[in-house]
């Protein structure tokens, strides 16, 4: 057994606060998804024994999902890494924390010394971090002050395309309103958003809206638990949502179902839109989407007749190479029907958007002139060519397409420092492991999808030799930039410095945020102003250069829809004729991506490893039966998955869950990382994870 690994006893933990009775409840918030359920954590004898939702939370009403509950098990997992480790010729050996930080700092300083003119891109940071905004700020400061600007941002594999399209069209990368505005809508469109599975604790809002008479239209190729809560589901084939939007716009314009006054006053580029939609007749959009013409026409008329429509965008729309265009096309629908600003109207994305001010704050401490930050693919190229010397790996590299190529590139980095909890694939690549703290063991602020800012207080003591992110990056920053690194000793002090520096945070005083059961909505310029909920466009203008919705941005090119790259329906693609099925993947309710929930036995009991869902019709054509093992083959690789026949999947499409991890100790969670067979297709902003061609071959 490795030192400090599985088998080591978890050290006795003491209650963090005095006077804890036999069982005491502490307020907290979940560190996993952006719902940020606030919670009540039950502690007995210094040990977290249970966690429930905080019933006073406005957004969740006290609910929780299984992922958040798994943190109790994960905190005391026998698989947790409990000591800093250093790889040597014989494997892992324990190293003292101070020595580990010194080793990393020395290497970073050495990189600067050896490459005085050209060091900026030789050290990179993998985002996101796990703990809090403060730990993330500390990490960014540690590197940027030392002159290293590069971060591998999760956005590039998430919804950066959505944020970018919203920023171009509307001047904001955030959701334009809050979720509770659905209660004022006539129609709510969940466009590619499987809310019941992604954000289960929000689903009570759908039920409430439905009871109030709001029509909920769900657009998703796959039938899911969300389908049961909606009035109508439309199932366009994967990757065709942008064409559906243009088809709807075609009918709205042709049948005069749009708001002319609003269009002339508030939109730039309507002519380009009218021009573009001409060819998207019901017949053409039906052909592309594989929907009946009538369904598209009826949907358009319903949307045209609705006085107030709110659209909530799912993350998957951004995970096609046509993501930017798709989002713009959907924004166009909301724009021409006057559904962007006002009660019950708007467009929301699945993350909601990060509260602002981070860059502004960092600029106070970093030199203004720096090398431009590189995007992931450039950093990947540098790693591959041995031009990256130190990589601080805080989160998974498996989130990228062609994950094996990323692994290979990282293996060429001189020093890989892994900040993690378990002996996962990232730890396997590391030279040094500094084990991290679980959420109950640290303090810091977090933000949620409703732009709410929350504070999570430390509840229990961490195991002796694990190290919280804030401390690690503060210690590293002080060592590599002793003169310049600011001295924030605690997350609380950094939070307050941030709040006092950034005007839009002024009202978010620490004590106020700590006392809140839901979190306080950003921005808040003063604690006396009412919380800024509802539409963010308050003054009849959009924060774009001309104050109008911009539909014909030049850098985005003409308004259009294109087949996703690698689509089996694209005659120019490599996949055409060879890989006839459309690949789709998705998150499941019990897993937080493919990360640490894989170390929970409670989550494993619901999991099935690599499984592939296909329509019985597809199975018949392929002569594959329910329960058979089959190979999912793509342009770059294959993996074995158990076939499950499901009417929820469209014919000629496959769906497979994204969580499996080869290192998980529990059979249900084990499997091949599916991104190892995802080909490298990117739009200008982010990577594609769906919509390319694959085939299914019965395994012997």
């Amino acid at each position, binding site marked *: 057994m490795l030192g400090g690994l599985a088998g080591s006893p978890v050290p006795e933990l003491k209650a963090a606060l005095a006077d804890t009775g036999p069982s005491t409840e502490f307020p907290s918030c979940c560190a996993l998804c952006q719902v940020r359920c606030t919670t009540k954590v039950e502690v007995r004898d210094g040990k977290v024994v249970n966690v429930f939702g905080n019933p006073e939370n406005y957004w969740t009403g006290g609910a929780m999902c*299984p992922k958040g*509950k798994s943190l109790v098990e994960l905190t005391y997992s026998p698989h947790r890494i409990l000591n800093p480790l250093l790889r040597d010729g014989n494997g892992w050996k324990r190293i003292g924390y101070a020595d580990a930080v010194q080793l990393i700092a020395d290497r970073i300083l050495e990189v600067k010394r050896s490459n005085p003119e050209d060091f900026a891109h030789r050290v990179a940071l993998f985002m996101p971090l796990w703990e809090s905004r403060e730990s993330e700020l500390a990490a960014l400061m540690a590197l940027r002050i030392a002159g290293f600007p590069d971060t591998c941002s999760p956005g590039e594999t998430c919804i950066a395309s959505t944020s970018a399209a919203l920023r171009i069209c509307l001047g904001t990368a955030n959701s334009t309103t809050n979720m509770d505005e659905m209660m004022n809508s006539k129609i709510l469109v969940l466009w590619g958003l499987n809310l019941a599975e992604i954000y289960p604790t929000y689903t009570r809002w759908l039920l409430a809206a439905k009871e109030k008479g709001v029509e909920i239209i769900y657009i998703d190729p796959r039938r899911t638990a969300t389908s*049961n809560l909606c009035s109508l589901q439309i199932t366009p084939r994967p990757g065709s949502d942008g064409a559906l939007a243009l088809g709807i716009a075609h009918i709205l314009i042709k049948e005069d179902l749009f708001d002319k006054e609003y269009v002339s006053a508030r939109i730039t580029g309507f002519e380009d839109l009218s021009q573009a939609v001409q060819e998207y007749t019901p017949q053409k959009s039906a052909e592309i989407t594989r929907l009946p013409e009538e369904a598209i026409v009826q949907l358009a008329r319903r949307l045209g007749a609705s006085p107030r429509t709110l659209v909530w965008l799912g993350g998957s729309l951004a995970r096609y190479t046509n993501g930017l265009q798709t989002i713009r096309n959907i924004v166009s629908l909301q724009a021409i029907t006057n559904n962007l600003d006002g009660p019950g109207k708007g467009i929301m994305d699945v993350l909601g958007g990060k509260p602002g001010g981070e860059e502004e704050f960092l600029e106070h401490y970093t030199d203004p002139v720096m090398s431009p930050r590189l995007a992931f693919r450039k950093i990947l190229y540098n790693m591959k060519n041995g031009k990256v010397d130190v990589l601080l790996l805080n989160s998974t590299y498996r989130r990228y397409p062609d994950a094996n190529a990323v692994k290979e590139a990282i293996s060429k980095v001189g020093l890989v420092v892994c900040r993690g909890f378990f002996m996962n694939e990232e730890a396997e690549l590391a030279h040094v492991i500094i084990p991290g703290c679980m959420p109950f063991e640290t303090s810091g602020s977090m933000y949620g999808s409703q732009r709410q800012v929350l504070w999570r207080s430390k509840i229990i003591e961490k195991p002796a030799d694990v190290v919280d992110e804030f401390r690690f990056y503060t210690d590293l920053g002080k060592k590599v930039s002793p003169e310049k690194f600011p001295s924030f000793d605690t997350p609380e002090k950094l939070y307050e410095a941030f709040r006092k520096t950034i005007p839009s945070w002024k009202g978010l005083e620490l004590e106020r945020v700590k006392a809140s059961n839901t979190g306080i909505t950003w921005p808040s310029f003063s604690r006396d102003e009412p919380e800024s909920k509802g539409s963010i466009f308050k003054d009849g203008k959009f924060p774009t250069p001309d104050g109008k919705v911009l539909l014909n941005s030049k850098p985005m090119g003409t308004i259009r829809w294109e087949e996703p790259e690698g689509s089996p329906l694209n005659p120019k693609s490599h996949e055409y004729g060879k890989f006839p099925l459309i690949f789709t993947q998705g998150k499941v309710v019990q897993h937080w991506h493919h990360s640490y929930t894989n170390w929970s036995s409670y989550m494993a009991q619901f999991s099935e490893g690599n499984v592939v869902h296909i329509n019985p019709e597809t199975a018949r054509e392929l002569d594959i039966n329910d329960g058979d093992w089959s190979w999912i083959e793509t342009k770059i690789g294959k993996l074995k998955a158990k076939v499950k026949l499901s009417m929820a999947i469209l014919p000629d499409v496959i769906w497979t869950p994204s969580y499996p991890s080869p290192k998980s100790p529990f059979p249900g969670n084990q499997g091949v990382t599916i991104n190892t067979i995802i080909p490298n297709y990117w739009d200008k902003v982010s990577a594609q994870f769906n919509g390319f061609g694959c085939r299914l071959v019965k395994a012997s």
Partner: protein
Amino acid sequence: MNKRYAMVIDSSRCINCLACVVACQLTHQVPANFKRNWIRPGPWEFGAGVHYQPGNCMQCERPTCVDACPTGATYQDETNGIIRVNPKLCIACGSCIPACPYGARFRHPGKRIVDKCDFCQGRIGKGRSPACVETCPTRARIFGNMADAASEISRVLKARPTVRVINKKTDTEPAIYYLEKTSPLDWPVEANVPEAIRLWRDLFNPIVKAVVGMTGLAVLVMLGKQLFSDPNSEHRDQGHTGPNEAKQEMGKGPDDETPND
């Protein structure tokens, strides 16, 4: 007046998020793969897809698991109707496992008792709801006292038509009511109370109780375990639909009873 605890489940609200299952397991320190409650997916229906039916011990009025218990460990609490297990009497013989048509009984791997849902006796005693009820994101489960006409559950039962999910041959008169639209209504498994146990119980149970009353149970428990307990035995009929069929490695559990209630 005695209480009568029951649950109304609106399965049309269930999103199969499984939070109720994990909430229960954490609260009662039940290891993964053993379950006091469950979510049962219904069949695919054209135009309607799959709906989900949450459940847990039905706290039956005619509890076949009580009939099957040779020691009287499983009993109905007369004060509130809950079917409970006295851990001091339970010899983990497992007779109650096939006797329950719902698969709601399972050998707790750490406690050497055959565990079951008790509507979170400890929590409700403190005025809280059962863990599954409190956690449910869509409020699909309503818990309360049917004997109190003013309770939410009484009002729902009065106002809305409900059904009970039962096996056609074995109506155990469950105290879990489903709002009308739930499927399937038929529970596929019959209760199987071993005849030998029925006999044993009728003849000897009074003696067992007397012995316990006088001497404690240590000797008899050991004897009982020898006689009845076989962790490898298969207690189920083929096709049993229940939450506790998975046979996986046994986790280590605590010795005391439901400390997180």
